[in-house]
């Protein structure tokens, strides 16, 4: 029998007999012959685990850009942060890994409490009172935030800063086709969003304004201006924030945001070529009944002991169906638990420390890189843990050359901002050393020469 099937042939025969059947294929009598597959699947037969591993290791080996081979200076929403053994060990506990969504709270307090702690941590970083139990990734969190904002303001127009991750903006465009939202991109000038004084054109006044903090170019924008704009327009303020940066930066809520969304990969989740990551979503209390996704709340059991349970379920698809606030069901719980563990490891001082170390490494890198002939700043606005430069030649070429020198140089700004082809987005995390950065700058000098 198949690799992970316990049954022996005798047992199968016995079970079939109990069902009054003689052949296992009779189980599929309800399937019309006409549609049945009349051949076997054209896939290789099953192989032993060692062969499977060997096969997968071949793929792994063909990835040149693994962070144990190329020193990583790429960011853009996915960062090469320290993941301590303790986080891997705890997040790998099979009780967390192999359980389903906590439908039976009596036997799911482990996941429920961990998520409750996660929600508390996210809310504190966001400076907002409510956080959900996770969404797919930063981009999907942004989409849900826009849906919430439009539903709240009943206005379909959405202003999105060009400083929002280009992939998030692409997702907003994709899903707007279904929801009918009108997405208007507000350009960056000098690294910060140039908000129009007033709504122009047919779109009308926006119900939602979305801004990045720091934005995609790593720049820090003055969000008080955005808050003022939203007040004037009566729009919801959605901030796409880097949660790790909150170790040093004012929180979204502190700037007056109604909703904070973000990418939680920075808290203990491996780069993993982009997934699974962790969509963060926090908002003000007034919007809790429009919250997308699961929400864990504290309560008590019949013996009055503290207990946790998913709550406000009436918002969700399985109950509200076509009127649900979102269609999300399976989310990224394990990454949320991982983040709670990683944040527990960082703690209050560690969150500040890691943000500070990233900022130091980034500023040190920026200095070294801008000292390279022909490399100039993309924008003058202040940066924290990531920055963009203009190269004398195409960024793609430079990235290829830098790989030969042992570095993943960064991300080309091609397609992200106008004329981005010569733009390179560079991030240096707490894992980068002065030696690595100096070598990087030296290699860059050769690469652009």
């Amino acid at each position: 029998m198949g690799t992970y099937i316990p049954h022996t042939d005798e047992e199968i025969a016995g079970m079939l007999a109990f069902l009054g059947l003689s052949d296992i294929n009779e189980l599929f009598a309800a399937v019309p012959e006409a549609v049945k597959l009349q051949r076997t699947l054209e896939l290789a037969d099953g192989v032993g685990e060692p062969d499977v591993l060997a096969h997968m290791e071949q793929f792994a080996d063909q990835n040149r850009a693994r962070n144990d081979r190329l020193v990583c200076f790429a960011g853009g929403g996915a960062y090469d942060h320290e993941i301590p053994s303790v986080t891997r060990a705890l997040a790998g506990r099979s009780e967390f890994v192999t359980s389903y969504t906590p439908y039976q709270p009596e036997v799911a307090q482990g996941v429920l409490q961990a998520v409750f702690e996660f929600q508390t941590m996210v809310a504190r970083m966001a400076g907002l009172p409510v956080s959900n139990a996770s969404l797919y990734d930063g981009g999907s969190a942004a989409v849900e935030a826009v849906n919430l904002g439009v539903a709240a303001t009943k206005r379909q127009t959405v202003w999105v800063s060009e400083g929002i991750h280009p992939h998030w903006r692409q997702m907003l465009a994709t899903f707007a086709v279904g929801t009918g939202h009108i997405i208007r991109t507000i350009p960056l000038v000098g690294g910060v969003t140039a908000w129009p004084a007033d709504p122009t054109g047919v779109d009308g006044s926006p119900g939602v304004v979305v801004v990045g903090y720091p934005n995609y170019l790593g720049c820090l924008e003055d969000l008080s201006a955005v808050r003022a704009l939203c007040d004037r327009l009566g729009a919801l303020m959605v901030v796409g924030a880097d949660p790790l940066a909150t170790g040093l930066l004012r929180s979204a809520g502190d700037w007056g945001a109604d909703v904070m969304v973000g990418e939680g990969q920075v808290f203990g989740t491996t780069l993993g070529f982009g997934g699974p990551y962790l969509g963060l979503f926090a908002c003000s209390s007034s919007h809790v009944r429009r919250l997308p996704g699961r929400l864990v709340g504290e309560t008590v059991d019949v013996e009055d002991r503290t207990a946790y349970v998913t709550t406000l379920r009436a918002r969700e698809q399985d109950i509200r169906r076509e009127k649900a606030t979102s269609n999300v069901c399976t989310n990224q719980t394990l990454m949320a638990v991982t983040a709670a563990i990683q944040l527990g490891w960082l703690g209050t001082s560690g969150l500040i420390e890691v943000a500070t170390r990233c900022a130091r490494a980034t500023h040190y890198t920026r200095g070294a890189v801008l000292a390279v002939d022909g490399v100039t700043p993309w924008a003058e606005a202040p940066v924290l843990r990531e920055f963009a430069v203009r190269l004398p030649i195409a960024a793609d070429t430079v990235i290829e050359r830098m790989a030969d020198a042992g570095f993943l140089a960064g991300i080309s700004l091609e397609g992200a901002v106008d004329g981005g082809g010569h733009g390179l987005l560079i991030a240096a995390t707490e894992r980068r050393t002065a030696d690595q950065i100096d070598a990087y700058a030296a290699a860059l000098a050769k690469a652009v020469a």
Partner: protein
Amino acid sequence: MMIDENATIITGAPGGKASSAPLLGRDAEPTLFELSHPGRRSWSFRTTGIPEVGVEDLVPAIHRRTAPVDVAEVSERDLVAHFTRLSHRQFSVDLGAYPLGSCTMKYNPKICDTVAGLPGLAGVHPAAPASMTQGWLGLMVELEETLCEVTGMAAATLQPAAGAAGELTGLLLMRAWHDAHGATRHKVIIPDSAHGTNPASVTLGGYEVVTVPSDDRGCVDMAALRSVLDEDVAGIMLTNPNTLGLFEEDIAEIAAAVHRVGGLLYYDGANLNAILGVVRPGDMGFDIVHMNLHKTFATPHGGGGPGAGPVAVSERLVPFLPGPRPYRTGSGEPGAAFGWLTPERSIGRVHTWHGNTLVLARALAYILANGGDGLKQIAQVAVLNANWIRQRLHHTYDVPFDRPCMHEVVLSTRTLKAEHGVRALDVAKRLLEEGFHAPTVYFPLIVEEALMIEPTETESPQTLEALAVSLEAIAAEAVRVGAEALATYPHGTPVRRVDEARAARTLIPTYDAKD
């Protein structure tokens, strides 16, 4: 013997005893915030040699936060104890049978954890160019081709992060296709047995939900379906086998009818496990198919995610797939065998990066281990197990649609409730006490007091036996002790029945919301 009077309390924070370790399983585990004590720490970082510039020189004043984010401060030792104790308060597949209908809680092979942890897969930045990520692109292409063979479709996107994301992606594909053919349509049909994500996705896709009833066979009522089919119908979403665990026998007629009015068929792949290698959605006439890799292909559910919901489509819909997509360039040059391509009429991006990639890697490893032959056996034994349970219990519980089922069976406590006031929930909670996870309850909505049991193929006959014996004993006990007594269960779990109403009434979504 006396207790020291002037004994000083050195800290008010609760101590690190295994209070919640189910070894003892009584007290609650304090939150990390209660265990927290100012000044404790776990973190450590590498020596970098980078000058220690002050924060003032790094962050302009207006951006600098004044008060630190109060996360929690614990030692690594207490961090480990806390989360290890929490894990002891959590049921999981690794602890026992988890017959949660519609969720396919099969065994998650450990080899896949090893695969997901390979530095060459886990350590790759998603923005690295194709030339440096050939392994990942090759893996994704191989998986896509495999999933297409399994579903009988032409091509697939691996971007959707879960089933619901796949549904919405599919509906946007539907919309794009109709738009491209100049016909804006407004309605999408779903059966009344459909999962909640279906109607929710339809709305987000910008369509209006039209529900068709199920007939007395538990299948789509053909007459009712025909009556709602017209030129305004963009398509229909079906789960087959459906959420009653029954195969939609009229699928060919349904497909023909829907296609006749120019509609498309969407296949909700949550139950794909039942038909692997037996019948393929593409051969049934479906145009769009999502798969839940975290169900059919055994990637662990992680307490509620991550999953992966690739969407495969028939030839005519390929130009609309989300992009960029990995593809075979045909080039023989090293590092150029695979590349990224965005279909000319793509609906665009539906994931920030390329999908839940490490979940994709796990799924491919699982498929390779089973092979084409193994996949068919999975379907056969999954269906065998479910039917054995049905046959064994059909005198003990009501079976609303008492005929051979596929991979899951929906029982009901209708009679038990009528005669003894015992509800499906009571049976479920009582089963927890027996050491099993409960079945899915009250779904599908069209069955009253539903107990939806999906054993999956990885539960051994002796486990089925034990499950059946427990369910029989509970039914007998229900008659013997009555509803009230049964309603007190479970007793031996870390917590007993929880006050869900109170949770919603006085919402406490964070530790800070506590008065």
